[in-house]
């Protein structure tokens, strides 16, 4: 929680139920009392939303105040004396509960909330015990599906307005609201407009009754047969804290945990319901080895032998440089480190990339000065040069949206198309795909008058520059890949330009895959080694421990795929990567898989790519393994195991270690704890960040790397013990639970001082400057007949998680080509028409839609939706993809 640094004059003294304490001025009585262990019952108040005082459950007596004021709308004042347990208050509580129960059905035994229901609990603790009402209750049609994910039972609703306030205030998707009056009041969606918010699951979590329930969890379990562990969501790189709940060894639910620096208790629906993929029947559960045209089930030893032989043959015949690794951004830090050590320290190849040319160059991500999410939310101005945050990093969108709406942070958006953030941005500069660098140069030039650049008018640039200031002071740049149809290098180069002009600006990477930041930190990218150091800078440091190291910097994903297509990369190891669906250029990815003589896939499902492999090694998924993960800020948190993996599935780091052995190496660890111990000893940005440090109570929200150490070591009980002792009723803030998996970590010996190489010889961390992104070919001149492609992403896509989650799969939209109405008019087209779209790769037939959020001269087509789409059109060898759009017939 927040640091308490108030001095005497900044606090007020209040007395609640005879207990006198200091509270912050303006703090609400209900919150101040709760911090001091006095629980005032409530239904409508939620610590992360504005109070409304609707339910009257929190009435208290305050000396000198007439009547019973609600504790949730009354701020503390100096000398205030509050009583929460007097007979008058008790009578009021009885009354409120009796009133709420008049129309509340006796559904508890079949209600998903039964057993963990605030209405049940508070009726039990504060209610009258018996009802005087025998009349018929109000009736509504029993649960109605207000979306694919949420069911609403209006009979159970107590009109607390938590859900409607969440949708309106927090998510900004006001799709549900109250209709009718009096005892007919009901929550409802608008006709023909389902509750399609990406954040709808949060309303289920905060509904104090079982009125809103989640369809994926419906009737799956009851609270008393759930088992839970605290973990971190690994669906995207925001790294929301979650409680992972299982029943009978099946994951059945994820709940958001309130982490102050990260997710404020919220989750997005993809993160919340994506656990369904873990339980999917189609998992690969045993190793597969290719015999002729078929993948045949094999034992692990056969599969390891086949994989090792294939890799060793290529190494011996063509050299280590002919082996490349793709992927690895979905596992734990330990998994990533193990793969990096196998690739670079055993096989000595540097052609390793955890991104599939759909992110940013590692040097830019690791080398730019980093900001945290809180920094961005408290910045003077935020420059957003990245993807649609609402689609790719949903909870980061929630945080930034709140910062804009409540905190007045000014957002300047720079991108090839408008996004979910556009309506909250002070200004949105829509540039021509591929020309971000020109815009960045102009924006930071300080010229007056400002010239037009990259398709953006000078006045607009001047206005944006006015918001951002001249030196980048207080500016946080949220940096990601706005479109996979333009090269990531241009975006990195633009960032370098900004960093050079504004030395005070800091950067928050907006890359999406679950642990992509951890994978980069652990060295799963060309030219870097674990701990954010360059290959050459870290050579000496690592060669002492690792033995061999790659001679030369290797290829990045684009290079690897290109080289494999030409037969220069002979062996490909896919670490959960599916280049056919995730690499921007599908044609090239197909050629690469065909061109690589030997392919090993370490995967959870058979994807279009792993089906082509010679050996498939089944890997454990989220919830089936423990370790640590790293979010966009560099925040290292724990992920924990909740269920056992199916079949003979193993964790990635084990597979890496076993393969290493068969390749004549030894990774030198035998548990996740040992892997982490090595990271905390060797990786320069993580030195000293031991399991013990991570387990400390004050680090429950994780530790942001690079770890700078701390003052004198504190001898404190580890988190789990303190947690157990301080188990208090927390109402709606889910008490974050004891961190399981810790014993494993705790068992590791910390390196003693003399074998800690900290300090002496530790290589410097990477920095990133103009030119470091490598040469970027200038985009070709705009052709008046062509439209330039913008390929962003959608939250629900054709990825492994969504495709295998029963309730999410149907939510992926079908691809539509969106263009500015002006361009459509010019072509004589209207929304709904079908057109032939031709790029240098192929021709597709697609439906078009008019969208004023797309600048003239561009067309947008989301990447990786089911069926043919952007990946078929994109030509990865070009800096941008130009399309010709013609009417069919």
């Amino acid at each position: 929680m927040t640091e308490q640094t108030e001095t005497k004059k900044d606090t007020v003294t209040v007395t609640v139920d005879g207990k006198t304490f200091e509270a912050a001025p303006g703090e609400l009585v209900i919150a101040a009392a709760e911090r001091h262990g006095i629980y005032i019952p409530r239904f409508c108040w939620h610590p992360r939303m504005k109070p409304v005082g609707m339910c009257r459950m929190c009435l208290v007596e305050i000396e000198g105040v007439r009547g019973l004021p609600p504790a949730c709308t009354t701020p503390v004042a100096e000398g205030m004396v509050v009583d929460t347990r007097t007979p008058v208050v008790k009578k009021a509580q009885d009354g409120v509960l009796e009133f709420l129960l008049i129309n509340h059905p006796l559904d508890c035994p079949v209600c998903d909330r039964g057993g963990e229901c605030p209405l049940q609990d508070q009726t039990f603790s504060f209610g009258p015990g018996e009802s005087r009402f025998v009349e018929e209750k109000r009736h509504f049609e029993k649960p109605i599906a207000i979306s694919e994910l949420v069911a609403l039972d209006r009979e159970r609703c107590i009109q607390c307005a938590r859900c409607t306030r969440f949708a309106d205030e927090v998510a900004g998707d006001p799709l549900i609201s109250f209709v009718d009056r009096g005892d007919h009041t009901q929550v409802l969606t608008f006709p023909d407009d389902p509750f399609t918010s990406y954040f709808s699951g949060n309303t289920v979590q905060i509904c104090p009754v079982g009125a809103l329930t989640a369809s994926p969890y419906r009737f799956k379990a009851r609270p008393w047969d759930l088992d839970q562990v605290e973990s971190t969501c690994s669906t995207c790189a925001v790294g929301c804290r979650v409680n992972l709940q299982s029943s009978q060894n099946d994951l059945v639910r994820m709940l958001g945990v309130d982490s102050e620096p990260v997710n404020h208790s919220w989750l997005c629906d993809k993160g919340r319901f994506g656990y369904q993929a873990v339980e999917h029947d189609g998992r690969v559960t045993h190793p597969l080895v290719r015999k002729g045209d078929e993948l045949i089930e094999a034992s692990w030893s056969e599969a390891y032998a086949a994989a090792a032989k294939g890799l060793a043959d290529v190494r011996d015949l063509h050299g280590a440089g002919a082996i490349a690794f793709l992927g690895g951004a979905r596992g734990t830090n330990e998994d990533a480190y193990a793969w990096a050590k196998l690739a670079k320290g055993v096989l000595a190849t540097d052609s390793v990339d955890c991104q599939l040319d759909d992110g940013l160059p590692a040097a830019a991500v690791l080398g730019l000065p980093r900001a945290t999410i809180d920094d961005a939310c408290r910045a003077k101005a935020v420059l957003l040069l990245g993807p649609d945050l609402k689609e790719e990093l949903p909870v980061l969108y929630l945080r930034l949206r709140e910062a804009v709406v409540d905190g007045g942070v000014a957002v300047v958006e720079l991108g090839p198309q408008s996004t979910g953030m556009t309506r909250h941005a002070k200004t949105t500069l829509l540039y021509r795909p591929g020309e971000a660098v020109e815009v960045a140069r102009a924006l930071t030039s300080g010229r007056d008058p400002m010239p037009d650049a990259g398709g953006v008018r000078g006045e607009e640039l001047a206005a944006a520059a006015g918001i951002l200031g001249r030196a980048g002071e207080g500016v946080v740049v949220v940096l990601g890949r706005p479109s996979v149809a333009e090269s990531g290098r241009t975006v990195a180069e633009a960032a370098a330009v900004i960093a050079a002009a504004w030395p005070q600006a800091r950067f928050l990477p907006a890359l999406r895959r679950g642990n992509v930041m951890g994978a980069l930190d652990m060295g799963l990218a060309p030219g870097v080694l674990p701990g954010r150091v360059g290959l050459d800078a870290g050579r000496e440091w690592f060669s002492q421990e690792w033995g061999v190291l790659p001679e030369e910097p290797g290829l990045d994903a684009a290079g690897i795929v290109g080289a494999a297509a030409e037969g220069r990369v002979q062996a490909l190891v896919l670490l959960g990567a599916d280049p056919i669906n995730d690499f921007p250029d599908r044609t090239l990815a197909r050629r690469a898989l065909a061109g690589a003589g030997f392919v090993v896939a370490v995967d959870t499902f058979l994807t279009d790519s792993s089906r082509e492999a010679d050996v498939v090694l089944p890997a454990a998924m989220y919830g089936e393994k423990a370790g640590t993960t790293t979010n966009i800020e560099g925040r290292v948190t724990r992920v924990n195991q909740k269920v056992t993996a199916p079949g003979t599935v193993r964790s990635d780091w084990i597979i890496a270690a076993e393969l290493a052995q068969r390749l004549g190496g030894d990774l030198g660890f035998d548990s996740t704890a040992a892997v982490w111990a090595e990271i905390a000893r060797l990786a320069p940005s993580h030195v000293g960040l031991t399991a013990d440090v991570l387990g400390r109570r004050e680090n429950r929200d994780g530790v942001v790397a690079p770890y700078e150490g701390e003052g004198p070591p504190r001898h404190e009980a580890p988190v789990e013990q303190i947690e157990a002792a301080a188990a208090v009723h927390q109402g709606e803030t889910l008490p974050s639970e004891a961190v399981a998996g810790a014993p494993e970590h705790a068992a590791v010996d910390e390196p003693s001082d003399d074998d800690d190489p900290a300090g002496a010889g530790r290589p410097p961390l990477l920095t990133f400057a103009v030119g470091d992104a490598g040469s970027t070919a200038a985009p070709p001149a705009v052709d008046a007949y062509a439209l330039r492609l913008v390929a962003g992403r959608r939250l629900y896509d054709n990825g492994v998680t969504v495709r295998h989650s029963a309730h999410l799969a149907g939510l992926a939209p079908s691809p539509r080509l969106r263009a500015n109405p002006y361009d459509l008019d010019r072509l004589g087209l209207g929304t709904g028409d079908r057109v032939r779209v031709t790029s240098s790769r192929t021709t597709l037939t697609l439906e078009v839609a008019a969208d004023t959020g797309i600048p003239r001269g561009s067309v947008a087509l989301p990447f990786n939706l089911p069926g043919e789409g952007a990946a078929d059109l994109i030509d990865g060898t070009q800096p941008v993809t130009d399309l010709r759009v013609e009417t069919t017939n």
Partner: protein
Amino acid sequence: MGYFEGFRVTFEQLFRPRVTIQYPEEKRPKALRFHGRHVLNKYEDGMEKCIGCELCAGVCPARCIHVRGLDNPPDAPVSPGERYGFVYEINYLRCIHCDLCVEACPTEAITESKLFEFSFSNRQDAIYTKDELLVADDGQPKHLPWEDWREGEDLHTSAWVRATAPNGDADYEGRVAWSAELGYGVRPPEAGQLGDDDAGAPIDDITVEQVAEGGHH
């Protein structure tokens, strides 16, 4: 004489009435509220009483009940309301017949018969499935091939037994607070539960006297 003296007890016993019986051909009557193997009851219209709420599983001290609920199919509902017990299993290697599940059930779906004589040759068979526990179409427990049922053991299975239990709430004594069931309708309150002049139904075959004679030791 010392020699015969030693047989005195033996000879005396020879002429006393026998207390042992020829088990299993012959069996002692069981207590009225004896806890045997469970049954899952149905309403008169044939709907299942179980709503799959898992309260029984939650309360079971031996953790031997496994229940999973599912949405009632709208066109052919299995139980009244939204939810029904889709999976219902009791592991009789663990059940201690405490009847807490019966107490916990909000719909009187799970109750116990008098049957306790059943044995298995493997662990899997000791797990009774929903199909085995569910009463037959006449409302009587199914007599499964490996079970040794005797006359009357399948009669007192309803919630009636629980609702009129002497340790129940005195306010409810003699009041019909249980639901009707398949094959029996609403069972009347037990004799002696309605106060002095009540005309409660006689208990059919197993009487309280029998219980007193032949009850547990």
